[in-house]
């Protein structure tokens, strides 16, 4: 794999980014669809981050909304209270998310927490975060949320420009992802996702790998969270709630395929389509959503990308067979 030239190794990623960049050509005239597309890109970015944290290093973070939200709130509150420029507040917000991610990862390795135990500790943090935001009313404006309309870059107020900004950040995240996965660290990730003990015994620093993955993933969450908050115009607790971030991201990752490069993108795109499909059902939408979830997972248990790859491989094999026979 790694001895192929760089240009052909990443054709799939480049093609996908180009495809995503063409979306405004169709959707630019209907602001509603452009907004859906922008949100889908945000969720794609988050799912890429979660793929690093959970897919590659098996750390079940259930505080994804809280990570993204803490970055968004730190940025918004600092900008509002101290009138700082977004060039200063955004890095501080993102750093807050990175710091939290590293903290959880370090503590879980230190205490040897199992998957579920880390999941529940981070879930408890999610709930604490939500309650803190509601409680610290003087800074966060409680349930109503903070208006971020004039805090960010003017670029974010223009729908098409904002979409391209998110695409650029997504491309950056994918670039970093590909770079990491092709480095020694990437080999270490693959080894430890197969068997942690064996990886450790063969000289891989599992602690360092987990912390690096959590740091990179949390940074992605923070960056997209902050930008999403500024783009949305309002930062509110419901924007970053467990139901609105953690569950969609988890579903998108599993739907697309864990530990694959394109899985997060495909999964998040499919999730956006499902959400739009379910919306007209009104009161029954939650029910339909649940049924779809069950059916999709029983059908595509390994994730869409792996399934497609298998189907594709199979047809190639068949062509080979036909030409020889």
């Amino acid at each position, binding site marked *: 794999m790694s001895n192929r030239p760089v240009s052909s190794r990443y054709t799939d990623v480049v093609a996908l980014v180009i495809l995503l960049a063409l979306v405004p050509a169709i959707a630019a005239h209907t602001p509603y669809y452009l907004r859906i597309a922008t949100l889908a890109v945000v969720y794609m970015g988050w799912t890429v981050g979660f793929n690093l944290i959970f897919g590659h290093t098996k750390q079940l973070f259930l505080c994804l909304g809280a990570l993204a939200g803490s970055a968004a709130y730190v940025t918004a509150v600092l900008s509002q209270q101290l009138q700082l420029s977004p060039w200063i507040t955004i890095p501080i917000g993102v750093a807050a998310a990175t710091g939290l991610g590293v903290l959880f990862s370090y503590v879980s390795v230190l205490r040897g927490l*199992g998957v579920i135990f880390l999941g529940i500790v981070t*879930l*408890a943090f999610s709930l604490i975060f939500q309650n803190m935001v509601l409680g610290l009313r003087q800074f966060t404006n409680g349930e109503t949320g903070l208006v971020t309309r004039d805090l960010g870059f003017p670029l974010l107020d223009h729908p098409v420009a904002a979409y391209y900004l998110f695409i650029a950040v997504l491309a950056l995240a994918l670039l970093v992802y590909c770079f990491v996965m092709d480095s020694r660290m990437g080999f270490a990730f693959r080894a430890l996702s197969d068997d942690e003990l064996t990886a450790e015994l063969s000289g891989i620093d599992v602690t360092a790998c987990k912390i690096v993955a959590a740091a990179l993933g949390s940074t992605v969450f923070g960056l997209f969270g902050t930008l999403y908050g500024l783009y949305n115009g309002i930062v509110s607790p419901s924007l970053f709630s467990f139901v609105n971030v953690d569950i969609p991201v988890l579903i998108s990752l*599993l739907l697309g395929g864990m530990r694959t490069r394109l899985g997060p993108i495909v999964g998040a795109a499919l999730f956006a389509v499902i959400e739009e499909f379910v919306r007209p059902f009104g009161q029954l939408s939650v029910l339909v*959503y*649940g*049924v779809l979830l069950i059916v999709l*997972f*029983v059908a595509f248990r390994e994730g869409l990308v792996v399934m497609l790859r298998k189907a594709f491989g199979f047809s190639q094999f068949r062509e080979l067979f036909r030409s020889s026979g």
Partner: protein
Amino acid sequence: MTATLLDGIVQGLQLSLLAVGITLIFGLGGVLNLAHGQFAVVGGVAAKLLLNLGVHPVLAGIGGVIGAGLFGLLVDRSLLLPAYRYRGEERLLLGLILTLGLSFVIDGYLNYAFSEFSLTLLLPIPLVQIAGIPMRTAGLTTSAIALVVFLALFVFLRWTLLGKTIRSIIENEVGAELCGIDPARTRTIIVGLAAMMAGLAGIAQGLFSSLGTEMGPEFTILGLLVAVVGGVRSLNGTLVAGVFLGIVNAFASRYIGAYVAFIILLSVAMATILLRPTGLLARFT
């Protein structure tokens, strides 16, 4: 002070009742049931439907518990089958998503079909004096039921053959299968039993105050928290964790205020998991 302590124990027993099913299903089936709180609501709805038919409240309560149990059996024999085909991490992940989907289905359906639903059961005598402390009979009844259920469960697991089979599967599923135990059959019984206990916890909520169809997710989260603090594989641990968190919550609500109490409860749960990462009473079942 004593009153708050007793209040905490009562709340805690209800929490344990909710969490013990999660512990059992995880220990035996390797599936973390994210629809457990919804099982509790299903039990409550079944009881309410029976009440509306004019059934005596006690019988309606029992009917509700049985209804939840039947629902659990149904779920185990249909929805969870794909998950049982795998082992270990794959089963856990698929089970997580399937039960999450189920929780959406139940929530979506119940909130749609029973939008005005609320279950409130009133006991004939609301308050009694015990050693000079006024106690709500609802709390006492729930605690008594919970204690009896836990006692029965311990006796069942310790002294009956089926109980021993169950413990052997919790210990090692492959090993138990090699000894001629059928894990699938035992699992179905346990999921039914666990759902019945969840139903009981739901009906107990109706005794305390009132049960609504929207309370499923909250129950699930509380149950998960208690089960994990208890070590998610140990029944004693779950019982102790539930009572412990119930007492923490009662004291925090009484002396600090309901809003901060929840944060304190969550922080204590987090701290306990970090201090005892394999459960409150590691390896003790």
